[in-house]
């Protein structure tokens, strides 16, 4: 099994994540889809690191995880606050600002 399959898998995951952002209504799920995208990138990075024989890609993957964690903290806080106000986590309900 060549490395390129990992890349394809990562790309597929990325696509699934992106499409998930488009089709899911729940803000938490949308956010999870974003996380899926980030993780597919991690997979890509690790694959490339493996391919090039350097550690850089893996180090970057660590960075990405840390950043993703921070993002989760911020994101959940924001989503929580709007959920508590609106009693709904549907992104389609937050629709006051338009045109």
């Amino acid at each position, binding site marked *: 099994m060549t490395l390129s399959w990992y890349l394809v898998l990562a790309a597929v995951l990325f696509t699934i994540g992106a499409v998930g*952002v488009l089709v899911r209504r729940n803000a938490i799920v*949308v956010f999870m889809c974003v996380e899926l995208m980030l993780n597919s990138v991690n997979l890509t990075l690790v694959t490339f690191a493996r391919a090039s024989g350097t550690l850089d890609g893996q180090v970057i993957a660590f960075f990405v995880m840390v950043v993703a964690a921070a993002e989760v903290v911020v994101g959940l806080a924001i989503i929580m606050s709007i959920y508590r106000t609106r009693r709904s986590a549907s*992104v*389609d309900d937050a*629709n006051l600002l*338009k045109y």
Partner: protein
Amino acid sequence: MHTVPASGLLAASWLLIALPLAGAAVLLLGGRRTDRWGHLLGVATVAVAFVIGLACTVQLGGMSGSKSVNLDLFTFISAGTLDVKAGLLFDPLSAIFVLLITGVGSLIHIYSVGYMADDPGRRRFFAYLNLFVAAMLLLVLGNSYVALYVGWEGVGLASFLLIAFWYRRPAAVTAAKKAFVMNRVGDVGLALAIFIMFAQLGTTSFVGVLGSTGALAGGVLTALGLLLLLGACGKSGQFPLQAWLPDAMEGPTPVSALIHAATMVTAGVYLIARSAPIYDHAPAARTVVTIIGAITLMIGAIAGCAYDDIKKVLAYSTVSQIGYMFLAVGLGPIGYVAGLAHLLTHGFFKAGLFLGAGSVMHAMNDSVDMRRFGGLWRRMPVTFATFGLGYLALIGFPLLSGYWTKDAIIEAAFDHGGTTGYVLGGVGVLGAGLTAFYMTRLMFMTFFGRPRWDAGSASTPVDPHESPGVMTVPMIVLAVGSVAAGYLLTQAFPLSAWLSPVFGTNKLESHVVAPLWIGVLVIGAMVLGVAAAWLFVGRREVPVVRPARVSPVVRAARNALYADAINESLFMRPGQWLARALVFVDNRRVDGAVNGIAATLGGSSARLGRAQTGFVRSYALGMLGGAVVVAGALLAVTAG
């Protein structure tokens, strides 16, 4: 053409223009303060100008050698190779015009003192009149076509102001505008002629242009001749621009006498005579001049027969008489002197006739309807006598002015030779007959027969009376002129000799038709005309109300051969229609395009704005789409 610089009194000839101009300025700027003595100042400036003009003429007459005196005052316009001097040219031709303008002008100024005595706007009247005299003098004295043009439009302005002098009357206002605009049509011709002169010869001065006509191509000369003729037609009320002149009678009667009979309307004749060297080389243009003259002569005479308004009849008579003059100057060297002589005598008797008409109107509470006159000779003997002499002079009664000068024109027409000569001569004779008819009709209706005026209102009873001396004296002077001028100018002190420095000596060796026969023909036509008038008007009762059922010929004559109708349907209505259509185009199409762009932008903004739905997921879709496009574009660029 050779000129000499001005010296002596001639160096001061600019005063001729400056004095009336200063008079006008003082009267206009002085306001009410000058009300009490303003009219006197007006009279004085013109009278002094007459004296100066006379003295200049005497000096000119005494000069030997060249009789063209040039006086450059200052540079008017100088740019590139164009160099126009403000300058005067005093020669025998301008001299006779100066004398006519200031002489008749002085008389009419004096007359106006009485005529306008009760008008609150008398000061303004004299200011305009002075302005007119100044402009008219500039017209005949300017030494270049540009200077002439300045005077040309100046008299147009004065004419406009004076026709609309009683500016509350809508008719007067309309007539003034009509006069100005139709004059402008002619002015465009004159202006274009000046442009051609500059383009071809690099100069606009009389000396420069008229001295180099030989260098010009025939087509250019013909064009020049026709364009100058267009200008002349506008100013002189000639076909096809004749319609404004009768309407101009809405102005006060002295104005009709001075401007619309004696002086301004003859400016066209002056222009053509002045441009003689051009016409000498442009026979086609010259023929057109005679044709225009002949047509106008007939139009004026026919229309004159049908009107009941005394001033309109005189106005059409003027149109007709100027037609004679055009006919004359169009005949070439043999006609110049005849035409100018007729111009001078016409100046006397027509001015006299108008002043007489003014006197009658003065007596009749400003009525002009001849059907309401009758039997006035008893009430106004002086007016009757002077008017009668003018009448006789006009119809060409033997030995009076008109006889000499009109005869000369008809003679010259026959002498033109060939079929053209006979036709033109025949028209002249026919015109003489018609002149006799309409003028006799006028005499009968006004001075003879039963009095037909009604009593008028209590406050303004109609009580015909003789006019005061200040009015009758000028009339008497002009009557004397009407009687004597013709003999003096043709026989005693021949105008041809005086003008020979300008036109050379043109003695015809043999006549086509013997002068005696022509004399008989003309007198015969006159007698026929008078007899016809007696038959149709004199021996019958004149109905107070104008008969409505008349033949088409009479109806056409009453409508001045439908000149107004033609102008209206040919120019005015299409013009108005075009203007309205353009307003639509400008608002809807041109401006509409601008507003349309704005509306389109606004509309697309609103439509595009709908894409901003407020839904996060559709935003994300947009971004994803954008990312795909970006990636695709980059790949395409690298691949290609």
